[in-house]
């Protein structure tokens, strides 16, 4: 299908603590990518409060994105939104905004899978074609690669996500979310000062991994106070990243793909990058990291995946636009591949 050049898709992301709006041309040029994060006073994400935040900032973020892209809303061809996986109240807020916008503009709606979107934006921005993708964030940890019509999962967490594991430990260690410095980054800084590797659980099970035992053990040692916080941060990272790296290497060996893509919020971690680069070299694969702006949850990735879906005949009728809290990537058809 050939599209005139001025076709745009606006995408809405609201699966967890970020509310984001992105605008992409049908050729994959990102014209705007605006988000507003809900930062809890203390503790982790409270889904209902996050959803309330999203509803409050939706108008502002939308109009900022339209201004930034400098386009007339009437020229939007399609509205996409993250339909899952994620936190129910947050997802519903985004879906409601998307439905209203699509109906107001009288354009089709496309529900996209948030995890697929992280992979697709990574591929777009790093010119990667057919990678083994490691997607690591606050809510997801998975290794996926395209085989026979879908992204197949070659490894995932059996319990909590990598970003969640790091964040919970950081909070326990008294680190605070400061302006411009997320918890994970604060932990990474401390970890670079660690010197001693403290023995912690290392749990790889088949193609999957488990992080909750590691987190519990690390928090217990922290509370006992016998080790330096820096050493614990270092050891937690080394163990967690080594586990993730091991399952990623298995996927590379199994699929024999020649590209490795690191995407998602935790992709910003330099130590994790170094480990994966080493694995890629070992398997003669090209290593790529998604650029920072597109690493954390963002609207641009939803817009771009909306373009891919829509131009391959996928639309989501309003009556089928209910959110899918546990929508796995291997349940999603990706007709734009092969």
């Amino acid at each position, binding site marked *: 299908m050939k599209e005139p050049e001025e076709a745009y898709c606006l995408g809405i992301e609201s699966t*967890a603590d970020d509310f984001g709006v992105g605008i992409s041309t049908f050729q994959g040029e990102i014209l705007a990518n605006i988000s507003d994060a809900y930062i809890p006073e203390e*503790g*982790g*994400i*409270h889904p209902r409060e996050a959803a309330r935040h999203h509803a409050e900032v939706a108008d502002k973020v939308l109009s900022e994105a339209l201004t930034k892209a400098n386009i007339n809303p009437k020229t939007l061809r399609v509205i996409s939104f993250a339909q899952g*996986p994620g*936190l129910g109240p947050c997802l519903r807020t985004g879906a409601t905004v998307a439905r209203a916008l699509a109906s107001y503009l009288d354009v089709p709606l496309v529900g996209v899978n948030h995890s697929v979107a992280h992979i697709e934006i990574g591929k777009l921005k790093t010119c990667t074609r057919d990678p083994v993708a490691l997607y690591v964030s*606050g*809510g*997801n*940890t998975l290794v996926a690669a395209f*085989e*026979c019509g*879908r992204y*197949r*999962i*070659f490894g995932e*967490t*059996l*319990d*909590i*996500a990598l970003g*969640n594991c790091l964040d*919970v430990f950081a909070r*326990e260690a008294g680190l605070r979310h400061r302006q411009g410095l997320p918890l994970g980054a604060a932990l990474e800084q401390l970890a670079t000062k660690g010197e001693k*590797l403290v*023995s912690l659980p*290392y749990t*790889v*099970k*088949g*193609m*999957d991994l488990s992080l*909750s035992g590691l*987190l*519990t053990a690390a*928090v217990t040692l922290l509370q006992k106070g016998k080790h330096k916080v820096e050493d614990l941060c270092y050891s937690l990272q*080394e*163990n967690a*990243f*080594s586990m993730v*790296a*091991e399952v990623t*290497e*298995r996927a*590379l*060996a*199994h699929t024999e793909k020649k590209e490795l893509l690191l995407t998602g919020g935790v992709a910003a971690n330099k130590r994790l990058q*170094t*480990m*994966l680069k*080493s*694995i890629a070299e*070992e398997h003669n694969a090209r290593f790529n990291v998604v650029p920072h702006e597109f690493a954390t949850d963002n609207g641009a990735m939803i817009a771009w995946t909306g373009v891919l879906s829509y131009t391959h005949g996928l639309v989501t009728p309003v009556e089928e636009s209910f959110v899918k809290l*546990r929508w796995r990537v*291997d349940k999603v058809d990706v007709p734009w591949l092969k």
Partner: protein
Amino acid sequence: MAEVNSRQLLKKGAEASLSRAERYGRQVVIKARLPKKYRPAELDTSIRSYRTVHEPQLMNEAKKAGVATPTIFLVDVKNTAVTMEFIEGKQVKQLLNYLSPSEQRELCVRVGELIGKLHAHGLIHGDLTTSNMIVNGEGKIFLIDFGLGEKNMELEAKGVDLHLMKRALQSTHYNLAEECFENVMKGYTAVVGKEEAEKVTEKIKEIEKRGRYITKRQEET
């Protein structure tokens, strides 16, 4: 030295390199776990030694449970290498897609029976994939690759073990996965009994539904 030279690389996997050789007048496989540069040396050494020691132990235990595994000849902890019997045959992975539906069914039921025998003896394989099962010339199934296994009687461990079997089927035999897993569970049920199999099935469902988020520490435990 002559022996070392006669080694023939069989497979270089993600974790180990496997070579074939002749020792004591028989065909053997030498499985050497290679150092991983990406993780700290200390951690790397402890992971490799642990697996090198545990894999042969579990393989011997599995034999006692009535599950065929290659016989272990030598455990070289220093070089993290295990020498074991070579099994002439094909991986279930290579066979499965080429079998007739009834042969597929039979093979999966038998695999399920073996898993049932392991679990009934408190053994968790830890990496149930169709590459880790070899069918020899007489049609006997051997289980290999116990490096991630453990001795554990808990329902949780059994559930995870079977969940991983299901996941492995989904990622390599997508179109057959559902039916194959149903048949695996049939064989499993025949060995462990209906009541236990139902409990494990419930556990698998629970594992699949597990949330990926915890908001507070307390909610995790």
